[in-house]
């Protein structure tokens, strides 16, 4: 057995150690933000109590224990899952389509997931008991994940089908946006003929929320997102080969059809499951991969996938903290925060690093 050497090690020392430093910094930030996110909220809980509850799972104040264990930790975990999942699915799509503008919401994948959710919420409304995701049982959570993943998978499949015929990235993007629009209008028709209560639930869902995922749903979501991330990580070698374009990838022995299928499956699962529970969260999927590339200065997916996960986690937790408007009782929808506060951050990073284009030319 010859000695195993990481390909990362073949990079020059400075770039390699810089990448390590950035990854470590991101990881430290992620842990810090995770704890901060649990600390902050409408009910003030002292810092040492928070640490006590996180690490020893006990507190004299049962209300605090309940708040932290049943509400804040699940919410923070959901933020981590959503941050990782959405940004990695965006990264995979940008490589698959070789397009810097590709992302779950930009190509209508999120809309597809929305169609799946609408199918459960609006059509399922006639059978008694289904009003909100939080009221769905364990079977309900699987149903909604499946439908949302199928919905996003359907849209992605359509776009890939067209991508096979159209090589032009800009045209493909326009087609993707159009398919997203068609999907949204199908949902609108559905909404138009729905009962007001059902409609309200659906509208609330579209605002996006990290707080609706508890207990069983959280287990289901963690399972699916972990599986999707695993698929992405397994695909990292194939994704790297795809960076040179499909012809080169094929000439290097890649079974293009199967690779596309695995990447598609992973992307649909990630986007579908997260969108099902948290609503259509925009912008994270397209922006985080660019941030990770800008920070790490590489397109190598073996570094980029962990980097993207960490950057996604940090940003999502940060946005969640802002969403609670610290010091107030109000919570604004996460969807608004990611765009309102996240977008300027991304613009700043991309402009200051100014190497976005180089990854795609």
């Amino acid at each position, binding site marked *: 057995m010859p000695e*195993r050497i990481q390909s990362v090690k*073949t*990079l020059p020392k400075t770039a390699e150690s810089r990448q390590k430093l950035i990854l470590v910094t991101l990881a430290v930030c992620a842990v810090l933000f995770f704890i901060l996110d649990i600390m902050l909220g409408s009910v003030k809980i002292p810092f040492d109590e928070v640490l006590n509850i996180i690490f020893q799972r006990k507190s004299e104040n049962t209300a605090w224990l309940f708040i932290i264990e049943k509400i804040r930790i699940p919410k923070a975990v959901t933020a981590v899952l959503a941050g990782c999942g959405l940004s990695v699915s965006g990264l995979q799509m940008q490589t698959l389509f*070789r397009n810097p503008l590709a992302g779950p919401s930009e190509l209508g994948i999120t809309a597809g997931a929305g169609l799946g959710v609408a199918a459960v919420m609006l059509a399922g409304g006639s059978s008694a008991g289904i009003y909100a995701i939080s009221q769905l049982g364990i079977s309900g959570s699987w149903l909604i994940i499946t439908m949302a993943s199928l919905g996003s998978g359907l849209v992605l499949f359509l776009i890939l089908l067209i991508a096979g015929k159209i090589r032009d990235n800009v045209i493909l993007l326009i087609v993707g946006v159009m398919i997203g629009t068609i999907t949204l209008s199908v949902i609108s028709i559905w909404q138009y003929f729905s009962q007001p209560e059902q409609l309200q639930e659906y509208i609330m869902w579209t605002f996006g929320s990290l707080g609706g995922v508890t207990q069983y749903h959280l287990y289901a979501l963690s399972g699916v997102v972990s599986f999707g991330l695993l698929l992405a990580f397994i695909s990292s070698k194939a994704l790297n080969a795809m960076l040179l374009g499909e012809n*080169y990838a094929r000439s290097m*022995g890649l079974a293009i059809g199967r690779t596309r299928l695995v990447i598609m499956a992973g992307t649909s699962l990630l986007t579908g499951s997260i969108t099902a529970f948290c609503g259509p969260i925009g912008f994270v999927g397209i922006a985080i991969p660019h941030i990770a590339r800008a920070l790490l200065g*590489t397109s190598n997916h073996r570094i980029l996938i962990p980097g993207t996960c960490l950057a996604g986690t940090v940003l999502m937790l940060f946005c969640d903290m802002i969403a609670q408007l610290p010091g107030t009782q109000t919570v604004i929808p996460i969807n608004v925060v990611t765009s309102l506060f996240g977008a300027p951050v991304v613009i700043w990073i991309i402009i200051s690093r100014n190497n976005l284009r180089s990854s795609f*030319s």
Partner: protein
Amino acid sequence: MSGGISLLETRNLTIGYRSKKTFRVISENLNLDLWQGQLVCLLGSNGAGKSTLMRTLGGLQAPIHGEIYIANQRIAQLKPADLARKLSLVLTERIEAGNLTAREVITLGRTPYTGWLGTLNALDEEKISQAVTLAGAGKIIDRKMHQLSDGERQKVMLARALAQDTDVILLDEPTAHLDLPSRMEMMHLLHHLARQTHKAILLSTHELDLALQAADKLWLMEKDGKLTTGMPEDLVLNGTFEAAFARPGFFFDKSTGTFIIQSQPGNNSVSLSGEPNLVFWTGRALQREGFVIEGVQEAFCKIVVAEVNGIPVWEINWNNNVSQTTNIEALIKTIRFNVNA
């Protein structure tokens, strides 16, 4: 020379495009062989179907009819990963992965050999450093792709193909975007590689004179899809080469192996003698200007070029009126003046 083994063969190969039920045949009944250690240049004018042939041989496009064998195995039956260990490609398309370092791109050449995570072992590392040395890419290895010139990028893509460690390498117009020195360097490199590594290298190119110099064998593709193969010199001498590229307005000069633009010959004849090097370039300028170069007897204007103290001097004898110039531009001006007078 070609006493070795045939690495790639085609039998009754028909190439072209199929759309639904109709075929558009580009070239048919091709029986070609690529031998070990040979550099073969595929030549043909634009639209002759060079790229289609390259794509078909490379397994990127299915043939309409016939078989391609690589090391005696039909490529249609090989798994992608197995084919990738026998045949590598360098394509014309510009790669859009500027954020990768040259080393990362070359490392990708090991894709058919590495495990599911792409981890490199000692053998992979060795093959990569060999490839880098062979392609002469050592100096640019840690630069990003977007920082490289076209010639350097092409070297990296070649190194990547070499790292793939295949017996056959196909290159589709590897010199297309390069300046003249880089083109010469690339051809020289490929010629040496074929000899040194005993690989079979096939490249398509528009560089006729470079191909004539470097190729062991030419595949000449004509507009009607006919493909003629042979040693470059044979094809030149039997006229096939000239026929394939013949156009009104220029002709192929067998004595120099270059195509020459034909200018309308005028009726002014001059004679030219002197230092061979100077005579050659003066002659080119005079021919372009429409003068006919003839013997000393017939010409009414006699030119003698000589080097005086290291400086070339043109002596013009026009009806025994002798004048001198020190460059060709002045020489032409003087003759023109005399003609018009």
